[in-house]
């Protein structure tokens, strides 16, 4: 039956009856709730669309920027290719050899001879003498040649080198007995290969 209406209406004094089977108030409340739900959904949808539009704008801006940068890169590469094409082969070779020499100088200047000699001084026992120290600046591989009085002295040298943190990959490359000669006592001639890491690295 219809909604109750016993409350006195401010401008209508006589109350009436209601035998309607439909409940107007409930139906109106349902409509209002449905309208509110639709409005909320609509707002959410609008928000989602706004976010999507903003994201799309941002993506488009990034794509434009990327395309611009790629175009710039291509343009620079073409310029470089054009410049290189204009340089004669002989001049290029001269440049390359100069660059190679400069690099070697830079590498050599970066190599610490003093550090290497200090480390060797701490590792080489008294009965071992070094005749040749040959470093490769690029790979930091150092080749040592010398003479040890005995095999024990040579072993002492190898252990001493291995214990230093400045060296790694210490290998005995060659050993040969050297007979006594005038001015030269008998001993063991050797060659050792190692990697010099610099300041204990």
């Amino acid at each position, binding site marked *: *039956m*219809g*909604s*109750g*209406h*016993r*409350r006195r*209406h401010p*401008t*209508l*004094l*006589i*109350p*009436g*009856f*209601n*035998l*309607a*089977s*439909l409940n*107007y*108030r409930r*139906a109106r409340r349902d409509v209002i709730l449905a309208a509110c739900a639709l409005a909320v959904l609509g707002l959410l949808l609008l928000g989602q669309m706004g976010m999507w539009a903003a994201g799309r704008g941002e993506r488009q801006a990034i794509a434009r920027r990327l395309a611009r940068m790629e175009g710039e890169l291509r343009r620079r590469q073409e310029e470089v290719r054009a410049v290189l094409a204009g340089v004669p082969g002989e001049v290029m070779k001269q440049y390359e050899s100069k660059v190679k020499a400069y690099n070697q100088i830079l590498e050599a200047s970066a190599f610490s001879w003093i550090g290497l000699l200090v480390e060797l001084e701490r590792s080489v026992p008294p009965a071992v003498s070094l005749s040749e120290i040959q470093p490769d600046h690029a790979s930091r591989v150092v080749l040592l040649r010398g003479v040890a009085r005995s095999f024990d002295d040579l072993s002492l040298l190898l252990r001493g080198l291995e214990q230093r943190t400045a060296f790694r990959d210490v290998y005995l490359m060659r050993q040969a007995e050297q007979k006594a000669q005038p001015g030269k006592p008998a001993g063991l001639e050797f060659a050792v290969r190692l990697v010099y890491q610099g300041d204990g690295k």
Partner: protein
Amino acid sequence: MAWGLEIDADALRLCRAERRRGRLHLRRRAEVSVPAGLVQPGQKNGNVAEAAALSGLLHDLCRKAGCRGWVRVALPDPVFSLRTLASDELPPKREEARRFLRWQARDLLPFPAEEARLDFLPLGPGPEGRVRAVCLAARERTLVEYERVLAAAGLRASVLDARSICLAQAASASLASGTTGLLAAGRTWTTLLLVEEGRPRFWRILREAVEMWGDGERPRLLREVADSLAFCRESEGIGPVERVLLTGLGGRTAEVASVLMNWLGIPVSGLDLCAALRTEGHPEDLAQWGAAIGAAIRPC
């Protein structure tokens, strides 16, 4: 602003109105005649002889007035039964109270109580301290018949009430205090409604139409009115009627009022709906629209 619809045996009246700051604002109105026999109001049998025809009339009326959706409907008085019931106690919940009163009214209704649809207005305690309620009841299938006609015309009833109750609501300003009789003559029947302290308390439906208030039948009708007032005072405990308002009598209003005043010995006058509704500039036939206006402006 809501739509009010009066379904009568001879016409359908539809209007859009509201009451703002005590004044009536009547926006649209439209009416159409109903062929004789199409609506036969009553409590026992079917009321609508041809539902499709009535729906068609209603549909055309709505299209003419621009109405659709919810509407507050005033149905003919003979569809309903208005009774005051007394009880030691009423269930606190409204739906339970309805069921209880429906059961209590089982011997007063001309159809099985379980087939009744009932609504009530609580009254103050009676002389013996019993709880009283004024009940309006109608047969379920009769109301469903009208609701189907409305639905077929694209309408939904938010209120179904009796024509005289809606008319009394429109005339609230004249009926709010004391005990007043409202004699509403129609083309097929006449209703005498008694309103006590702003609450409908009793009605008597006379099967005599407005034409019967001519000279020939008038004495009998006057006696019927006088007997009804005496009956309701004695059996329903309603206080003495202070005055009677007449409506629907057209040109006979002044004549009938004079005779009735002499007969009853209390003031009798025509209902001035324009004054009751505090309206200006509305047509002369506003009295005919009382029920539809009352339905439209009532709270829902």
